[in-house]
């Protein structure tokens, strides 16, 4: 069990195994994710990091051949228990994907969509939520004059921040980010990274990234995965300066992968 220092953990996985049909994708993963910190998952392609992050809000439920054992506790409750409601879990544990995927609607509607389907209809309250979410996603100043324009007209970086605002609108506790910058240019990437740093004051952020410099820049904790196993997990400083495992050392110094 990887114990992340004395931090308050919000998510804990215990002996998590996952199979796609006959193929093992995750092997016996036990880790803790601290609240209000950024945790990065790194590892070569196919190591299971995206599979793992998708387990945290039950996105793998949508894959027919997927089978899971072990447990993931969120605030001490197993999210894979029968009585758990995946919709409610996904509200509390939001996700931002690799490619920005705004709805083909206005900027305003993109952000208001989530609160609306969760039953919020008060126009004034919705306006407040939209503004607050866009501000927290560092997008408000750029779009406040054109909230009714189509979201598809935004740049890639703006679209990605809109997706983050859309996630924030339903007041999650955890934000999962699967390669959030891989489709963005360096300036947009830098804005997202600054935003991630701000988000951790209020949220737990888990980020999957191929870019090791990015993991080093934005995260407090880093987990290195290889062939479905969590090889090493520790503070980002320790992993990048002085990893314990030779496999980690070889990966982050580019000797394989």
């Amino acid at each position, binding site marked *: 069990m990887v114990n992340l220092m004395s931090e308050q953990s919000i998510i804990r996985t215990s002996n998590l195994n996952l199979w796609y049909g006959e193929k093992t994708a995750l092997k016996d993963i036990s880790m803790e994710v601290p609240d209000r910190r950024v945790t990065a998952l790194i590892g070569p392609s196919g190591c299971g990091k995206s599979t793992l992050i998708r387990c945290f809000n039950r996105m793998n439920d949508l894959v027919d051949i997927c089978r899971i054992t072990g447990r993931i506790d969120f605030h001490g409750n197993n999210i894979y228990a029968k009585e758990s409601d995946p919709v409610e879990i996904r509200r509390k544990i939001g996700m931002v994907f690799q490619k920005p995927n705004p709805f083909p609607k206005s900027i305003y509607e993109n952000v208001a969509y989530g609160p609306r389907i969760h039953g919020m209809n008060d126009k004034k309250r919705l306006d407040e939520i939209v503004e607050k979410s866009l501000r927290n996603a560092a997008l408000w100043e750029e779009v406040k004059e054109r909230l009714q324009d189509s979201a598809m007209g935004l740049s890639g970086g703006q679209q990605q921040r809109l997706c983050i605002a859309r996630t924030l609108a339903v007041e999650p506790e955890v934000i999962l980010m699967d390669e959030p910058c891989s489709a963005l240019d360096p300036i947009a990437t830098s804005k997202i990274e600054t935003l991630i740093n701000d988000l951790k004051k209020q949220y737990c952020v888990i980020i999957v990234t191929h870019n090791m410099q990015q993991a080093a820049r934005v995260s407090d904790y880093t987990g290195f995965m290889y062939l479905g196993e969590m090889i090493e997990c520790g503070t980002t400083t320790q992993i*990048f*300066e002085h990893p314990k495992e030779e496999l980690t050392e070889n990966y982050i*110094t580019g000797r394989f992968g």
Partner: protein
Amino acid sequence: MSEKFHTEMEVAKGKVLLMGHLAVGMLEDAVLALEENDPHRAEEVRKRKRDLSDQANALEEEMYRLIALYQPMAKDMRMIACSLRLISSAERIGRYGKDIANVVLATYSDQRFDDLVSALSLPHMASLVIGMINDSLEAYRNEDLTRVAHHSARDDTVDALRHTIFRDGITYMMEDPRTITRCTNYLMVARYLERCGDHACKIAEKVTYMVTGDQIEIR
């Protein structure tokens, strides 16, 4: 890309070693000039100082270039951190060599008392220090920490020797005030050698960090 980086890093490491050997060579030859009271050899050591500085600057620049282009991590980062410290220690060692060469040039014309060098055990002290530096450089080259395992005790010996030399020097000066010029210069030489021993320890500490990731202090 990482293969290109590792090739460049190996090349840079080779150059750092060459610079280290240039520095230790300056120290060795300066001590030899001191023993033989040889101003030509001393002059020749002084001339190498320019090359030493140029190499130190170029290598420092090279390390910064590797950091800027490749953002090395873990062991690679530690190797660069170690190399940067080694470069500055080596430059100091070479400069102490030059300082000792200056002592030769200041004292050789007065032929009296030139046996004081060996009477004060300066060559013996120098050989201990040069051995430590060479072992530190060898540990850097092949990552073999057994080479530097006893640096702490060896440095204690060197420090003790400096105190002995200090007391002996004062005794000679009291016995015969005509030795004062040479003896004060030689006490400075003992001080330079002791500092070179400290740099050998500093290099050993940084090589240990490079190999294991642990920051240690050799005292």
